[in-house]
């Protein structure tokens, strides 16, 4: 060590500063990436996104032959988001030279350090350069690289991770979800124990709204009774019954419509009506 020239000592010091700068940048980027990962994971677990499949096929590395396995979409999106945040965060931080970042947190040595760095780069070996190297290395002993780490930023990211990670696990295990109504607002949290997934949008169920014409065709129907022994004929008008029947007369089939003003907003209500209709049909 004692054989080192002042320039070599300075070079070593600069290498250490760069290493510390890289470490700080990677720590910050990692913590931020973790925060992004859990945030996206929670988002996918809690908010079901329309049009996004719940699983995606990925190559199965464990399989002996090339095959596809399915993985939860939320997990894939979370990993991708974490990766992107890490890469972008690390790139942005590492783009700024470590010596400048170190100087910013140790202003007392900033100019001397920058000058020494440039002098080393230019292979300066003069007496004044050697003196600068010695002085700068000596002054660097009184500095700290802790300032390179933005503790507030790291702490905030860690708090985000600490809060969101259990929430994400809880949402996944309990199936807690927040659904979006047609206006984009959230409705009351619902549990996913009810697996019913259809008829959420009245328009998709009932088709386009259109004018409903009241039935006006009069049909004479004859109902023959049997087994009672009497010959009793009854006449009924079609007006009394909206549902069809197997009479001899032909009737035009018509899709049920609904008036725009009476648009049903609640899918649950539509579902209830449908269930009731089915029950009546079954009876």
């Amino acid at each position: 060590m004692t054989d080192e020239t002042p320039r070599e000592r300075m070079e070593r010091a600069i290498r250490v500063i760069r290493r510390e700068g890289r470490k700080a940048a990677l720590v910050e980027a990692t913590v931020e990436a973790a925060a992004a990962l859990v945030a996206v994971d929670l988002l996918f677990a809690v908010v079901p996104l329309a049009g996004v499949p719940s699983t995606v096929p990925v190559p199965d590395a464990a399989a002996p032959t090339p095959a596809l396995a399915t993985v939860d979409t939320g997990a894939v999106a979370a990993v991708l988001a974490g990766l992107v945040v890490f890469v972008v965060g690390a790139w942005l931080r590492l783009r700024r030279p470590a010596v400048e970042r170190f100087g910013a947190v140790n202003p007392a040595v900033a100019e001397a350090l920058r000058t020494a760095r440039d002098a080393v780069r230019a292979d300066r070996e003069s007496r004044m350069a050697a003196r600068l190297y010695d002085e700068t290395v000596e002054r660097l002993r009184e500095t700290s690289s802790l300032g390179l780490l933005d503790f507030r930023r790291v702490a905030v990211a860690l708090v985000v991770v600490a809060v969101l990670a259990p929430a994400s696990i809880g949402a996944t295990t309990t199936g807690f979800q927040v659904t979006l109504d047609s206006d984009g607002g959230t409705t009351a949290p619902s549990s996913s124990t009810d697996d019913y997934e259809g008829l959420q949008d009245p328009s998709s169920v009932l088709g386009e709204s259109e004018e409903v014409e009241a039935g006006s065709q009069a049909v004479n129907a004859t109902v023959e009774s049997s087994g009672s022994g009497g010959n009793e004929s009854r006449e009924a008008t079609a007006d009394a019954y909206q549902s069809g029947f197997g009479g001899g007369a032909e009737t035009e089939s018509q899709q049920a419509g609904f008036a725009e003003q009476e648009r049903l907003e609640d899918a649950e209500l539509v579902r209830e009506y449908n269930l009731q209709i089915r029950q009546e049909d079954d009876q």
Partner: protein
Amino acid sequence: MSDRNTDRGAQTDGAGETVEADVDELQARVARVREEVGKRIVGQREVVEQLLVCIVADGNALLESNPGLGKTTLVRTVADATDLSFSRIQNTPDLMPSDITGTEIIQESGDRREFVFEKGPIFANVVLADEINRATPKTQAAMLEAMQERQVTAAGDTYQLPRPFFVLATQNPIDQGGTYPLPEAQTDRFLLKIVVDYPGRGEERDIVRLYAEGREPEAVDRVLSARELRAVQSLARDIPVADDVRDRAIDLARATREDDRLEFGASPRASMALVLTAKARAFVEGRSHVSWEDVAAMAEPVLRHRVILDFRAEREGMTPDDVVADLVDEA
């Protein structure tokens, strides 16, 4: 490892002699020079600093001041403290170039007659050229050429001026009758233009007390030899400067060429002067690197005589110093 890597080592001066010099010790001696000058010069701290910077940067200074502000005392004191030879040239319209540079005379020795060169007053380490704008352009040009080339040519022979060599030329800003103002191209040869202002009331009282109340001014010790000064100049030139500081200095000089308030901007020589004087100031301040503060401090004395104000700015009462100060703030 070479000697240049050690703080204490052999430093070759301009005459090829070696000076065993320690950088810390030399910086301390330069600081002592300032203290010694302070024994005779009251106040004017900035002027003394700029003068020292100019000497350390191996340049020449144009000093603008009204009469009676102690220019001669200042320069003579610096010469005394640095063990340098001193001469003074009082410029007048009838002064001839040979009166400054020297002339050949016939010297008789026994039965032999030969031409010998009689050196003029410019052959000194420190030359005070008083009221340089009173000399004719021809004499001015001869002196400025000698100042630039550091040599004098007479009758086909070239004579080297002593090293270190430092010219302090003065101009009187209020008495312009019968003067020949220096052309801009000539003023550019001066590394610095130092402006001496009137002292404050307290300082003026100290001056009166020092020189008009029977007390003998303190003797000035010689604390820096000519050889050591050469070593100091060489070391100051070697001070490293960060790329960003150097680039900002260059941008500052270039900005004078683009500013609307200036009709004529500074030349690339000004960029060099800015960096050189910043290095010298860093040495005088005892540092091993140049900071932006050094460049900013030297911007006005380096640039003020190298720019010409636009007539509109002049009409608004601006001075070159105002514009340079603005440019430093923006740099």
